[in-house]
């Protein structure tokens, strides 16, 4: 069983969460060309190592949060609230990550 530390609920089984995707910069739609937009839509870092990603606690508090996870060992070393929810976060952008539920996997 893999435990994910939800910032609100504490460590919970990973099956309570939905994986949203890698945290990535969302380009400004008003200043971005089609190619650049598609690159940000589809390209992934997909590292074998530490990665920063968005998760959604779908069977718990139903809040998004950001975790740092090692993709080979599945170890989680840090989690935080998404930037948009941070008190000092002035940047007006979404929680990062990518279109959810498009992994072909079971939706949890």
């Amino acid at each position, binding site marked *: 069983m893999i435990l994910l530390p939800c910032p609100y609920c504490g460590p919970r089984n990973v099956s309570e969460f939905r994986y949203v995707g890698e945290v990535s910069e969302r380009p400004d739609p008003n200043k971005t060309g089609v190619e650049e937009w598609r690159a940000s839509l589809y390209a*992934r870092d997909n590292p074998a190592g530490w990665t920063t990603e968005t998760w959604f606690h779908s069977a718990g508090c139903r809040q998004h949060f950001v975790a740092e996870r090692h993709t080979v060992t599945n170890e989680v070393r840090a989690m935080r609230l998404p930037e948009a929810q941070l008190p000092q976060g002035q940047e007006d952008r979404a929680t990062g990550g990518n279109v959810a539920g498009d992994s072909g996997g079971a939706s949890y």
Partner: protein
Amino acid sequence: MRKPGAIESIFGAATSSIGYGRNGHKPYRYSAFDLLRHGFSQADWPRAWREHELNSSYDVVIVGGGVHGLAAAYYLARNHSITNVAVLDKGYVGSGGSGRNTAIIRSNYLTPEGIRFYNRSVKLYETLSADLNFNAMFAQRGHLTLAHNDSSLRTMRWRAEVNKLEGVDSEVIGPGEIKKLVPFMDTSEDVRYPILGALYHPPGGIIRHDAVVWGYARGADAHGVHIHQNTEVTGIEVDGGKVRGVRTKKGDIAAGVVLNCTAGWSTLISEMAGVKMPVSTFPLQAAVTEPVRPFLDPVIVSGTLHVYVSQTDRGELVFGASVDPFTSYSMRGSLEFTEGLAGHVLELMPSLAKMRLLRQWAGLCDMTPDFSPIMGTTSVTGFLLDVGWGTYGFKAGPVSGETMAELVATGRTPKLIAPFGLGRFESGDLLGEKGAAAVGH
């Protein structure tokens, strides 16, 4: 172009077009007579392929010694007489996805592009054992994709019609016919997920996946291809937008063409050449039961229940599921998977309640945004891709090898794989294969 290796008769050891390779190597030819002779003499069988020293240069370097890489090497040598080829694998041949899949072959996809492509693969699989003089044990027992709700049934009808248009044998059948094909299936109406119908695809079936890998390795070796196992690629040399070679743990190799045939590591290998990929790596888990007497003929797939089941020639039931719910390079199994799988299998066939699982494992699936592979050229000249195979790579092995070999030899992208280029993500020409490829095996 050399003639394909047709077998004259099972005893016919006289002529073979799996001919003399680069080093004048004549491969051993398997026959029923030899099986009998070995049975009496108990002599050792000759090695199926040889080991070589790593050369400092090859015409073509193929990264990944699975069915895709070895098939590409084999067809390069056989169809195009390009034999100065090395296949590199960081483990042993078939240690990745080729040895971890559930060995299901089918061509009942949703888009015409997908159907044409996989249908060619089924055709190649049908004659593979004879072509390679190696029994791959392809059993075309039929393939059933179950529909548990109206929308699935609608997609099945859609698939059946597009299949028929492309000349692929597929039809939608009702619960009565399903019961005839699979007497152990619970087709009653008072269950949680009643079966409304199924897409029946008679040419589908299962194969022995290790034998496919070994057969291609042996065939490629016979033509003079070098297979280097335990040779991990650590870097790719690119100079002036052209690929120059690869660095491995055993030494550097100069090569004008480098073909990425990896599954699971395709992002990392492409990154070495500076090519960014639209790929996310997910583990997919599978499991196998203890062997029992044959009772299940066709392959059963249920997209709604995220499960597929087939019975091997040895009598084991092979189960697979959809990919894990989050990306990972970990190949460990999970309890959630086993629990979910057992529940779903029993939903379909309650009489399996006393079956015991022997083992479970995971393989890595490189998922693309449109559930279709990435094949063809890249922005780096000479660096080619045959990746992004998601959960459906094994069934495409032969046709991928054949078409990638043609691309390497002629420099032109064959029509069959033109829709699968990396450029489609830039131009927005994505292929919608999710309806047939997400879980459907």
